[in-house]
């Protein structure tokens, strides 16, 4: 039995840092398509985070991995970020579709100001991703929201 306080302090620190990471890492949403077009894994990602009291950010990203591979078309057909206060949409920023050709990664970040809200205030990133390689097409809809 280990009774030294330093030992348990270290264990507690490791757990606390782990919990901190869980809190910070789980904010985004992803979905993936392994063996997309038989050459790569396609990944769609959306994320939302608070920067400071003034603004919050919304992100959209399409990329390939394992292995990273340039594909015919990569990006999204549409993307919107919005904030809601008690279910009411305060701002709804609709962005045009955007793609790159012959690339492995495409992303964008939108910046919105934070509005005062007396209840549940949330930021959203939503839209449909776009992956094409040869005859293979993958267009997943993905949405994430976080308290901001």
């Amino acid at each position: 039995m280990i009774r030294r306080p330093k030992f348990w302090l270290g264990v507690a620190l490791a757990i606390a840092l782990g919990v901190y990471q869980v809190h910070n890492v789980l904010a985004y949403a992803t979905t993936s398509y392994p063996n997309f077009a038989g050459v790569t894994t396609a990944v769609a990602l959306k994320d939302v985070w608070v920067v400071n009291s003034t603004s919050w950010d919304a992100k959209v990203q399409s990329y390939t991995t394992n292995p990273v591979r340039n594909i015919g078309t990569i990006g999204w057909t549409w993307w919107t970020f919005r904030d809601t206060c008690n279910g009411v949409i305060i701002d709804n920023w609709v962005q045009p579709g955007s793609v790159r050709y012959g690339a492995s990664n495409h992303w964008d970040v939108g910046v919105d100001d934070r509005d005062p809200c007396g209840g549940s205030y949330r930021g959203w990133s939503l839209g449909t991703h776009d992956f094409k390689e040869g005859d293979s097409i993958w267009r997943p809809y993905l949405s994430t929201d976080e308290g901001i």
Partner: protein
Amino acid sequence: MSKRKMLFIPILLLVVGLVGISGALVQVSGQQSEPPVGTPQPDLPCSSDAVTAQAVNPDELSLVSRPLPQARGTPQIGDTTAAPATASESLARPASADEQQAILQTVQTLMAQWSDTVLQGSGWLHMVTHHMRDKDRGSSLPNGQAIPLNYISETWYRLDDQGQAVEVIAFMRSEDGEPVQISTFRGNIWRNLTVGEKWDGEPFMPRPDLGFSADAAQAREWGSTLSQQTVTLAGRTALRFTMRDEFGSPLLMEGYAQPVISAERRAYFDARSGALFLLERVLVIADGKERVVERMDPITIEYSVEPPAEVLAFLQQEVTK
């Protein structure tokens, strides 16, 4: 066990814990183990016919059940006829860490005092606020309807014994009182009845200060600075708290034509009751000019007043998506 081993085990646990948890999370979220490339660096039914409100003393809480603003003649942002706040005492230098903590404590004490007054256990809480925004460009709802920059927010919260909102009916109205959006929260599901969307939610604590004290509690983490002044606001003595953000490089936000270099969020509280008088947001443009981009006036806050039947009926409406 030797001392060296005793120290080694926690360090090893720390490293293994961080690596292991990170890896597990990556798997849970479905992302691949390598980091994503390209991640950036960073006519209002204001219950005039409702049951008498409880727990509000008009002498003490001057904001309670004030008449709603008229559709025309409402002071606009930058309206020089509106009584400005005048500072009678100011901080001549940036507040130290201890002073920041003391300011935060003051904000939280005021908020707790005000919450104790307006959040008294189970029952309905009714809040109405007037938002006046100044943007270069607005946005639209998914159905194409424009979202007004200036609007009235009217929200009914049904609180449980813990003071958590378990049912909500929220309206965004034009300044003429016309409904723009209606949303509800029931059975842990949010429903925006106007756009026909719904999503999961959970009970939450309403924030009579519109989130200012919660933001202030994050000031240190965000690198924001807090300051405090005693000011006169429309003939009333108020405590003005300012939360200031400085941006390392000019920041362009959606809806604004020019980048900003810093910003402030200012909350004016009644020093006696803790009631929020006014909340405003200010952006400092790259050329140094200040621009008030939002003013939020609390109009009504009342407790233990039943919503009118036509308002309650919205709770039963369903959406398809």
